[in-house]
């Protein structure tokens, strides 16, 4: 499997995701945002970080990069796109995924391991998780508060586009377990065709046991299936 990792000015998890993908024998190419061609690949990753300093709105300026036209083309062929954290924000700004990510409800940056439920384990990104799996993955963001209007939320539910949801210590989906105020505790969604994933948690940060939980491993294994 081959992945293109897009590097924007201000991306800072680009190396992290590369290290993680390579650990699972996925070959990576780093693509500078000004390039206007994408080498052939099965997967495009928009990494975490602060593209353009997250100035204006997170992901807004990156979403207008030259390379994003190519990413859109890549996605339209049904090939995989993953946006993690800032990458998720870029995907919503590009409208490849619906909704928007607002400032965390408590108005603070949060870096913490949080509890998640894998709501949909039939996507190409989650098929190695058990159904309704309870997992722990770190988040690190200031704007992860997922927002969409009622109609969109309803569609997300109906089409089973919600992939990860925040939950509390007892794996109940409620306000207590919602770190940032996201609608429906949404932590990650896919498009209807299920080839584009956006998620706030960082699976690349938890694939080694000695750094804490390693619940990110099935995520990368799913890609290989």
């Amino acid at each position, binding site marked *: 499997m081959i992945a293109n990792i897009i590097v924007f000015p*201000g991306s800072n998890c680009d190396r992290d995701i590369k290290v993680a993908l390579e650990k699972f024998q996925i070959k990576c190419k780093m693509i500078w945002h000004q390039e206007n061609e994408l080498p052939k690949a099965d997967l495009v990753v928009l990494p975490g970080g602060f593209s353009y300093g997250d100035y204006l709105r997170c992901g807004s300026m990156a979403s207008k990069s030259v390379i994003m036209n190519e990413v859109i083309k890549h996605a339209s062929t049904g090939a995989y796109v993953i946006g993690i954290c800032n990458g998720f924000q870029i995907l919503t700004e590009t409208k490849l995924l619906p909704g928007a990510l607002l400032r965390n409800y408590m108005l603070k940056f949060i*870096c913490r391991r949080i509890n998640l439920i894998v709501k949909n384990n039939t996507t190409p990104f989650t098929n190695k998780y058990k159904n309704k799996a309870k997992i722990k993955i770190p988040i690190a963001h200031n704007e992860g508060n997922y927002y969409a209007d009622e109609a969109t939320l309803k569609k997300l539910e109906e089409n089973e586009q919600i992939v990860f949801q925040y939950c509390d210590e007892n794996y109940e989906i409620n306000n207590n377990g919602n770190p940032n105020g996201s609608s429906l505790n949404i932590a990650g969604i896919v498009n209807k065709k299920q080839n584009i994933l956006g998620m706030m948690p960082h699976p690349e*940060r938890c694939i080694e046991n*000695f*750094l804490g939980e390693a619940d990110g491993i099935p995520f990368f294994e799913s890609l290989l299936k």
Partner: protein
Amino acid sequence: MIEVNKKIAENHGLTEDEYEKIIKIIGKKPNFTELGIFSAMWNEHCSYKSSKKWLKTLPTKNERVIQGPGENAGVIDIDDDDVAIFKIESHNHPSFIEPYQGAATGVGGILRDIFTMGARPVASLNSLRFGSADHPKTKYLLNGVVSGIAGYGNCIGVPTVGGEIEFDSCYNGNILVNAMNIGITKKNKVFYSIASGVGNPVIYVGSKTGRDGIHGASMASQEFDENTEAKKPTVQVGDPFSEKLLLEACLELMKTNAIVSIQDMGAAGLTSSSVEMASKGKVGIEINLDKVPCREKGMSPYEIMLSESQERMLIVLKEGREKDCEKIFNKWGLDFSVIGKLTNTNKLILISNNKVVCDLAISALSDQAPEYDRKWEKPITEKKIDFKTKIKNFQITELIEKIISHPNQTNKSWVWDQYDHMVMCDTINQPGGNASIIRVHDTNKAIAATVDCTPRYCKSSPFLGGMQAVCETYRNLCSVGATPIAITNCLNFGNPEKPEIMGQFVDVIKGISEACKKLNYPVISGNVSLYNETNGIGINPTPVIGGVGLIKNISQTSNHKFKEAGNLVYIIGDTIGHLGQSILCYDILNIKKGEPPPLELEKEIKNGKFIIEAIKQKLIQSSHDVSSGGIILSILEMCIPSKIGINLNIDKSGFQLIEYLFGEDQSRYAIEVKPENEAVLLKNMKNKGVSFKKIGKTINEKYIHINNKYKLNLNNLIELHNKWFKNYNK
């Protein structure tokens, strides 16, 4: 141009004597630009005129030190041709005036000191001190500083892995914001700031120069008073996005072998960077100010030279490499400009509009800067006092509950949750433990780092306090299994023109020196922040020490969380029960008199080495240093994260039990031992001659039992421990 006179010199913070000295050295009256340059180079912040004499006495070498003080940061050897580069720096004054931007630019500044030397920054730490929690400004300052550090560090993508935070009324008018950073690179890839090669081009890269922060460095060299707010220069605004680009661009350029020397523009901006580079290389430098990228039109030479705009670097390139350099900086969207060249005149020549606007000998600005032997008084050591009568009426359980919920001892995750401490995926021990552990990327080894200081000890006995701060970092490193290598220090003090303050400074340095020498744990970089006074009231002497150690194998580390019930808990080191200057007395009972605990450096070394060895041999399950708050606080800090209770059995009662549990005797550790490892461990302890005492056993119940007499519910303690910051910031 404004005509210079004595009065104007005085407004620039130069004394009459200093002004006269300038005229004598340069043989003319300086023009306004020259005066500004002198005032920047000769102020405390850049010239270290009050502290130099004493800083020279610090031990700075051991077998691993590659570069000691004198460069942008110090460099140590961490094996396999890898080096770690680190330094700590203060940003106290700006943070008091504008907490968010002050703290943010503090982080930005120390990051530049690290990557200017060729290292990729891998970990940030910070040491923060605020006034008392109920002081009206504290909440605002706390929130501003923490989000400023987070805002800058998170954006640039360097993990903030540790630090300390303390509240004390002595900081009401002068908060302390000290930022430390560590970077890693290869031994043969270190860059220095010594300019060389007459004719080589001098390059300006980074952001544009604006009218911000003019005279920031001189402000950092003055006391505050009511008028400070009015006098304040325009505060610098941090731009972490540009810094990220600057970081990547510099590291990219460094691969091309085009750089002769490189230096960040920090305090006193273009002035100090150009003068320092030239001075170190014993060359002259000529700059055409019209070539300096400016944000605003019509900036005067004075303003350009004194601006402290952030995210800028000065580079001396090999001749002919300008185009390669320009290409890289263009790619990253940063300004690039050839602004001058090195000369053989040993002079700083500045040209603006085809006119020479400054013509000064480099040595006049640097080597001939004043150096003072300030008057100092030997600090009066505190007398022993009798605590028994003051304490004996308190219930032990009540004292424990008070300590665990005090702002200085409470759970500080409110702070570090705001810092991205995991980015780069090498953070092994997260904030909240003893020392943070950061894996050296792509290897099996790690470095450990910590920042510590106990200012209440330093106030009471500067010598012991200086020693103790060094030892506490040493202990924190040992307790995670790291071999301590070297330190950086940030010396925060009041007004050095007062003999009693200077006396504190001198004694603290003596204490630090003594400890560093014995522990073979030298100083490789640092910073001095004086004049931390408001209306004549100074802070407690606060020599913050940043310690760095090496872990050769990441499978041989430890943390402070109890692992399971049924294990034995030992204290390594002697417990006499020294209450003077303890948290119990100082913070809880408000008894601020008394002397701090004594220290025996031989024991410090012996106990530390023993712990490292035991961790290596996997004989202990968890380990924690015993310091502020004594045994009881260490034990609680081991119980709380794992929710494991303990049965403590101590052959003491009444006041003696209080002394035993809360006393802050030094050089101690608490460890958790599996029963099957006890025998080997005991044998080792006896062989090595370390003192030890078994004090209890971890249990399944969520309770803390003391001598079957007192019982505390662990869940209650956890709640007490967790609530302070949340309630405070509601």
